[in-house]
């Protein structure tokens, strides 16, 4: 089974977001592979290991720095990586991104596509599902458990919803977006890290994919960011110290009479 994994590079979750002139200041950010995409990579590797055959290809769209995210996936055991250059693409718009990813998927070929349920930067939670629509494939999003029947070309997934899991049956090929809990991602091995050095990562432009720049550029974007701001600071609160029973009693009084929330 040929599994395609789309990986986004995002600021590490430890990042303290700073705003400069209404835009997020990314100058001193540590870039990592999107945490939800790590579950997608891990699942792809497990599928290949379980079947004892197939290939895992990792694709990332963006500037040159995204090669680090591809190399990270290769060090975990992905077979091949492709860098799709983001020049001219409205990268903040999930719809334009999905169009480019769909073209890359068609060029590479696949039986299954995996990606994270959302990027932890802009939190759109859209590109994976939009990719399925662009490719006219079924999708299951926010998946915490995945079973595939490669021979029958079917699958069964559990997706997390309010108050439980939905069990979804689907046909392959399909797009699956990964939620935390799907698996426990592995760490890179020394052998894996060494192997990366021998691999070349092809760079594809929009022209290589046969995508017209105007169809995925700023003019084609469905949404665009105007301005970023920090959330309003919270007012300093009351801190109680002393005997546990006394502080508990005082807290209940405050919640009831001052905050009026119970």
């Amino acid at each position: 089974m040929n599994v395609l994994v789309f990986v986004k590079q995002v600021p590490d979750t430890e990042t303290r977001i700073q705003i400069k002139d209404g835009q997020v200041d990314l100058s001193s950010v540590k870039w990592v592979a999107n945490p939800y995409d790590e579950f997608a990579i891990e699942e792809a590797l497990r599928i290949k290991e379980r079947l004892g055959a197939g290939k895992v290809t990792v694709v990332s769209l963006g500037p040159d720095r995204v090669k680090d995210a591809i190399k990270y996936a290769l060090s975990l055991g992905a077979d091949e990586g492709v860098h799709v250059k983001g020049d001219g693409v409205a990268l903040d718009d999930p719809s334009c991104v999905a169009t480019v990813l769909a073209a890359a998927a068609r060029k590479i070929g696949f039986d299954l596509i995996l990606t994270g349920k959302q990027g932890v930067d802009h939190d759109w939670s859209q590109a994976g599902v939009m990719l399925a629509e662009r490719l006219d494939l079924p999708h299951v999003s926010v998946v915490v458990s995945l079973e595939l029947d490669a021979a029958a070309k079917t699958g069964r997934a559990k997706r997390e919803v309010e108050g439980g899991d939905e069990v979804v049956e689907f046909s392959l090929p399909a797009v699956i977006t990964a939620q935390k809990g799907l698996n426990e991602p592995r760490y890179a091995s020394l052998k894996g890290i060494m192997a990366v050095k021998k691999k070349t990562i092809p760079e594809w432009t929009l022209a290589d994919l046969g995508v017209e720049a105007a169809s995925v550029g700023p003019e084609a974007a469905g949404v665009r960011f105007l301005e970023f701001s920090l959330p309003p600071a919270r007012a300093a609160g009351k801190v109680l110290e002393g005997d546990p029973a006394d502080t508990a009693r005082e807290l209940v009084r405050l919640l009831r009479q001052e905050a009026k929330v119970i």
Partner: protein
Amino acid sequence: MAAVKILVVAETKNGAVRKSTLEALAEARRLAAESGGALGAALIGPAGSGEAERLAQHGADVVFRVEGAPLEQYAPEAYAAAVTAAVGAGTPEVLFFAATAQGRDLAPRAAARLHAGLASDCVGFSWSGGGLVARRPVFAGKAFATVAFGKARPQIASIRPNTFMPLAPDPARAASVETVALGDVTPRARVVAFEASEGEVADLTEANVIVSGGRAMGGPDNFELLRKLCKVLGATLGASRAAVDAGWIDHSHQVGQTGKVVNPTLYFAIGISGAIQHLAGMSSSRTIVAINKDKDAPIFKVASYGIVGDLYQVVPALTMELEKALKE
């Protein structure tokens, strides 16, 4: 077919319209009042006989009713076809979803099909030069962004649950109901079963009160203390990433940047130091209570009320006091 300015895709659970849909209707009603134009609601799939009326009483002028065998269970492709059909009937300029698990799944599918832009998980809207501007959290709430739409219509947005208050139902309000045909559709992914998680009062994303435990819980057994407190408060149990990654509690309880972003009325952070990923996910809660033995813990910077003390003494005392107070 009646044209509408704004169309809200209603979500049902066991045939009843969900509260998050009524919240979206309330905000849509406000926006439609400012701009002029009618407000529509798309009622898709199985629904009780009074539900169209309920949508009307909560603000809808027109209800587009889409039914059919492929809609018996949620299936994204079939529901996207139903949304597309309703959009064809109502030709709205704005299309709203509730940003529930289903809405977050359906909205991007429908948006891609309609070739229109989608702003997800929004918490505020305004009109600007005839177009919609949405406000939404990014980086799990570490920052907020305003978003504008491209030329394509409708302008699509999903609305974070618990953000807006539903309107009080007005029994005098009525809506015209238009039946919209669903074309041929054979969904290739469909929900076949639902497995409920045990004993939860409300989902974290919808909860009014949340009690979360962190690293200082020390192990899975001590979460029993928090479950008792949850029971007294009717609260939903949450956890920090540290507690989840330690394997003490299932990931579905995680609050923060790689978990749920929550906005309850009352949030208890117990034995949680307040790592930036956690603060991102809960700092929009109305009232925050922190219980921690380290008075320098970052969680106290966002807490409305804090108790510096040993959680193993404070939590049982608090549970007892709350039990007493809530009985009165």
